[in-house]
């Protein structure tokens, strides 16, 4: 046993140190936030050595996260648009204005013309309350959230195959135990650095690591085998691996017979995914395909974890299903340290998708089109089932419907910077501008708030309580470190105040987040994501409980599927998912692939991280990654400027040479807005099931420019 790591000195525990969690990604690192006096910074942040997920590690974003709390550009008073400019207003005036406009718009254009857009950054309580607010107070079907842009494909795939969707069906510590780990389209060494301790432990125990990514990322550098596939061909590769598994008799016939159904369809469907065909589509050689499948099939345990790479495609759900098919065929799902999992992105991407801020769902993963589910929730909410709206529009479709043409006239946005985060961003910017009422609840004036009629300043992560459900399905309490500054309110207070003004007193007058949680957990009783046995006290005491947890005595469920799958008959289901190409492929006019991703230093639309000096210093602007050979062809030097154009927009990037990217592919991070927004280029083609946009592949052309004049 190695001794416990000696960590940077943590101030002696006192009433000034609070155990809480990082405001960023789904790993939800445990952290100690210490409030100090004197010349030191007001807050000091250290990773929590005892939280079993990050075990004393944390990334640069977590270390610098306190910079946002006292940030000078933080909004501390409501803003109302008067004569073209946002001017300070009282809470009373701002809320009255919102309520009055909402009523006018709903009266003139119908209840469904008022919509809300939520976020995977919201706590479970807020996500729950937002869904309830839209259905009960606004009586609109139109609520959705940016999780559609995150893991909706993985969620849809898991639900269809397993009957339930939990990012990981096991604790992250299982990663260290697995014989072969396949990271598919995840650059977690940069996007989720503290998870790497588990990956490295797995490797140091002699495990093998296969990384599938068009780029040789920091993660791919660690791999035993890196498959640098062509963007948008993950589905072909996954089907090809199953073809080889069958051809080489690596299928666990007994498992397939006893625990699954519909294998025959899949077996027949992958017959045409022979190595030569797959090689031609993916650029992954037949030899490497076989090496990969042997590594994962011949190890005594193995897991595939997917990131956004395969998921953010117009066939994301099918691609996830193909990965699941593979792991089912190898007999791995539900076995120790084995199976399929999704590395959820947003802080509460998991909880956010469970509690009803999604257009087709009610709390606890209940379905809004299911009569029994409607009845259960309606009873709890004290309304008639028929009064609940039906299924509404999904994220991109909702945003695309903004304005007089689409019929959505008013939009309330919580915790999301949709102007930057959406594909074909210029279209969304135009649509936001066509709204009769745009209300943004945020701590900062982000790109979306710039178009708002009303901006409501909200409390930040360390200033309010709430629960988050991390990528493992572990529910944790984010404790409050200090009270919010004067002039800001919590989202829960805002929704309550608006409900009251819109004539609904009951059901929104909560005194605390804990009270909301108490209602939430009752709403999930008996549902798939069952929280009913949890309480703040239990969650604090245990450092998190895995759902389902149906009773106060229940220990929670760290591992799923060991015995059965929550589907009729208890079996997992295979799905035949034949390959289809991306919605847009390179052609003579737009000859290159364009793909997007993240920097370690920044988070999603950058609304938070672009305000943190240390992060901006490290990565001040997006750089377009280009292979030197392609750069040579285009006549651009390292550091020079390249104008990249798709059929939807153009962005001028400074380039950085890298031999780690395919010579037919350009890469840019998506953390910036305005003229540097990668999403000006991306494609709004949607997955037919998950409604996930195709962020990860589109066709572009590029030319070197020597001066800004050239950008005509």
């Amino acid at each position, binding site marked *: 046993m190695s001794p416990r790591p000696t960590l940077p000195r943590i101030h002696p525990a006192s009433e000034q140190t609070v155990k809480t969690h990082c405001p960023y990604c789904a790993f939800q690192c445990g952290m100690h936030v210490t409030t100090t006096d004197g010349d030191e910074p007001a807050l000091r942040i250290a990773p929590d050595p005892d939280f079993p997920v990050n075990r004393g*590690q944390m990334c640069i974003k977590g270390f610098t996260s306190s910079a946002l709390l006292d940030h000078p550009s933080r909004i501390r008073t409501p803003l109302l648009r008067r004569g073209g400019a946002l001017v300070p207003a009282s809470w009373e005036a701002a809320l009255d204005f919102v309520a009055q406009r909402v009523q006018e718009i709903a009266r003139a254009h119908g209840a469904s013309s008022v919509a809300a857009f939520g976020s995977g950054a919201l706590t479970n309580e807020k996500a729950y309350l937002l869904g309830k607010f839209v259905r009960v107070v606004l009586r609109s079907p139109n609520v959705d959230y940016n999780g559609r842009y995150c893991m909706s494909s993985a969620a849809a795939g898991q639900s269809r195959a397993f009957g339930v969707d939990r990012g990981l069906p096991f604790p992250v510590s299982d990663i260290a135990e697995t014989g072969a780990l396949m990271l598919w389209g995840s650059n977690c060494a940069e996007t989720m650095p503290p998870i790497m301790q588990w990956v*490295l432990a797995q490797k140091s125990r002699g495990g093998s690591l296969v990384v599938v990514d068009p780029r040789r990322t920091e993660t791919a550098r660690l791999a035993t085998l890196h498959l640098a596939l062509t963007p948008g061909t993950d589905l072909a590769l996954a089907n090809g691996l199953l073809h080889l598994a069958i051809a080489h008799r690596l299928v666990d016939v007994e498992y397939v017979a006893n625990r699954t159904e519909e294998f025959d369809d899949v077996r027949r469907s992958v017959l045409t995914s022979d190595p030569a065909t797959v090689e031609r589509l993916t650029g992954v050689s037949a030899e490497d395909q076989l090496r990969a499948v042997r590594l994962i099939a011949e190890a005594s345990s193995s897991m595939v974890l997917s990131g956004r790479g395969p998921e953010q495609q117009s066939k994301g759900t099918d691609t996830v299903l193909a990965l699941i098919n593979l792991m089912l065929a190898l007999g791995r799902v539900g076995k120790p340290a084995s199976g399929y999992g999704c590395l959820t992105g947003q802080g509460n991407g998991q909880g956010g998708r469970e509690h009803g801020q999604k257009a087709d769902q009610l709390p606890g993963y209940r379905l809004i089109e299911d009569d029994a589910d409607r009845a259960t929730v309606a009873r709890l909410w004290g309304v008639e089932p028929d009064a609940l709206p039906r299924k509404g529009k999904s994220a991109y479709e909702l945003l695309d419907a903004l304005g007089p043409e689409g019929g959505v006239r008013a939009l309330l946005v919580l915790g999301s910077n949709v102007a930057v985060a959406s594909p074909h961003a210029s279209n969304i910017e135009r649509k936001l501008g066509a709204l009769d009422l745009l209300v943004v609840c945020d701590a900062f004036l982000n790109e979306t708030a710039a178009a708002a009629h009303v901006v409501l300043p909200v409390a930040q992560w360390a200033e309010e309580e709430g629960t988050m459900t991390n990528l493992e399905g572990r529910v944790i309490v984010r404790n409050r470190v200090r009270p919010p500054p004067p002039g800001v309110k919590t989202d829960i207070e805002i929704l309550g105040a608006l409900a009251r003004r819109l004539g609904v007193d009951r059901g929104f007058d909560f005194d605390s987040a804990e009270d909301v949680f108490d209602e939430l957990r009752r709403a999930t009783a008996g549902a798939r994501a069952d929280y009913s046995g949890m309480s703040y006290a239990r969650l604090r005491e245990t450092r998190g409980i895995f759902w389902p947890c149906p009773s106060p005595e229940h220990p929670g469920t760290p591992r799923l599927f060991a015995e059965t799958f929550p589907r009729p008959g208890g079996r997992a289901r295979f799905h035949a998912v034949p390959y289809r190409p991306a919605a847009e492929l390179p052609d003579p006019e737009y000859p290159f692939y364009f793909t997007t991703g993240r920097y370690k230093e920044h988070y999603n639309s950058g609304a938070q991280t672009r305000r943190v000096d*240390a992060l901006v210093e490290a990565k001040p602007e997006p750089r377009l990654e280009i292979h030197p050979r392609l750069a040579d062809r285009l006549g651009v030097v390292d550091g020079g400027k390249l104008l990249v154009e798709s059929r939807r927009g153009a962005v001028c990037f400074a380039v950085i040479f890298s031999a780690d990217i395919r010579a037919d592919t350009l890469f840019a991070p998506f953390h910036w807005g305005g003229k540097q927004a990668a999403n000006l280029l991306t494609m709004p083609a949607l997955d037919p099931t998950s409604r996930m946009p195709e962020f990860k592949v589109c066709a572009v052309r590029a030319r070197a420019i020597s001066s800004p004049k050239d950008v005509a």
Partner: protein
Amino acid sequence: MVRKKLSIIGNGMGTCRLLDELARRDGMRQYEITVFGEETGGAYNRILLSRVLAGESPDAIVTKPPEWYERHGVRLVHSSRVTRIDTLRRSVFTEDEQSRRYDLAVLATGSQPLAPPLEGMTRADGELRPGVFVYRTIADCLRMRQHARVGDCAIVLGGGLLGLEAAKVLSDRGLHVTVVHVAPTLMNTQLDGLAGEMLRGQIERCGIFVRVGRTVESVCGDESVEGVVLDDGTALPADMVVLACGVRPRVEVARASALPVNKGIVVNDALATEVPGVYAIGECAEHRGRTYGVVAPVWEQAEVLADVLTGTRSQARYVGSKLYTRLKVAGIDVASMGLVEPEIEGDEVLQVIEERRQTYRKLVVRGGRLLGATLVGNTAAAATLVQHFDRGDPMPDDPLEVLCALRSSTAASERVVCTCHKVTATAIREAMVAGAESVAAIGDATRAGTGCGSCKGELAQLLGVHAPHDRTPAAVPLRANRQSASTTTPAPPLPQRSAEPAA
């Protein structure tokens, strides 16, 4: 809406793909589809026939069992041969003189094996003599399986893709196999002479005998096959003869229906024949003067036809296919695409030959674009090359860059612990060896941990794991070892067999 009647004649790989593509485009709502298939049962993947020959159940390669057709509302008329279509009355006639009306017809009749007229090959009734086989259908494979016994002698006539595949399977089943190939080198459609010679070496190493530049003159035996006589007079005993001399388009239905036929059924870029309402795809079709005998073009044609017939992309057009061939036989790596030899004076040829390791790589480049490539023995670059070939991507000034491109697989490289300052695990260990005993000291020495701090926990762990050992004197040789290891060249792999004179 009344659905139009779509009749598809033939139930091979083209039809199978066409049905999938129609289904994906919701074509079953537009068309009431009837498929006529000569063979029994549903469609299967012909390129996997060797699996059946090798002993797997035929069902292992069936892509669409009869239930599939039922489930998708497609009428399957199997075990039934179409004799002609009356294109004016729009009716399909089967051999039992049943007729069925259609609005649109697609001929996908595929191809049939070429059977050279060898003396003694057939019986008086015109059927193949027992022991003589073609290799085209599941039924052919089952017949061969039934016939072939361990220790038998098999003559495979034809050293192309199919012949070599059959030879390998029969050899694996314990037969003494001789491939007789008329051209001077194997797979001469896809490989040049040198590549064909190297392939011969690989084939022979598998235990198969090869006679090139030879053909079979006659088949001998009373009832069943007992031997063959080659054109040089050599007589060889044989218990079976497999004909794998290529294929030709099956056009008899088209001819009987007065459709325009050249080498194949003549179609335009929309896969339409000049007779209204009649289309053709697959190996039976001739497009811009070319017929195809591999599956990828057939699939491309099926996609275009589905676009046209469903109106999904009614302006979709088929403009021809680029050919890519992989020999799918265990232990033998061959890839071939496009041109085998240069065609015009400006064509540049690049060849890399490793005689001892028996590898051969050749590129044909014109105007900076890849027009052809041949790889034998080392096909690691095939995937990258075929994408350049398919898309017409410009080749680098030095094409070797692509040919020898880093394998996509990598041995795990030196790990960066501190990604802010790109400090490797080795550098950190060296700092510890040099006396750094704390996270801060490592930071002073290497800058590790002084950026975001994410790696501090890991630095502490490394201190815990390595420090006690690394601080002992034994740590010094550790460093020396590492350096020497990096300068030592690994021994070259031993050749697999004794050297043979180069051909």
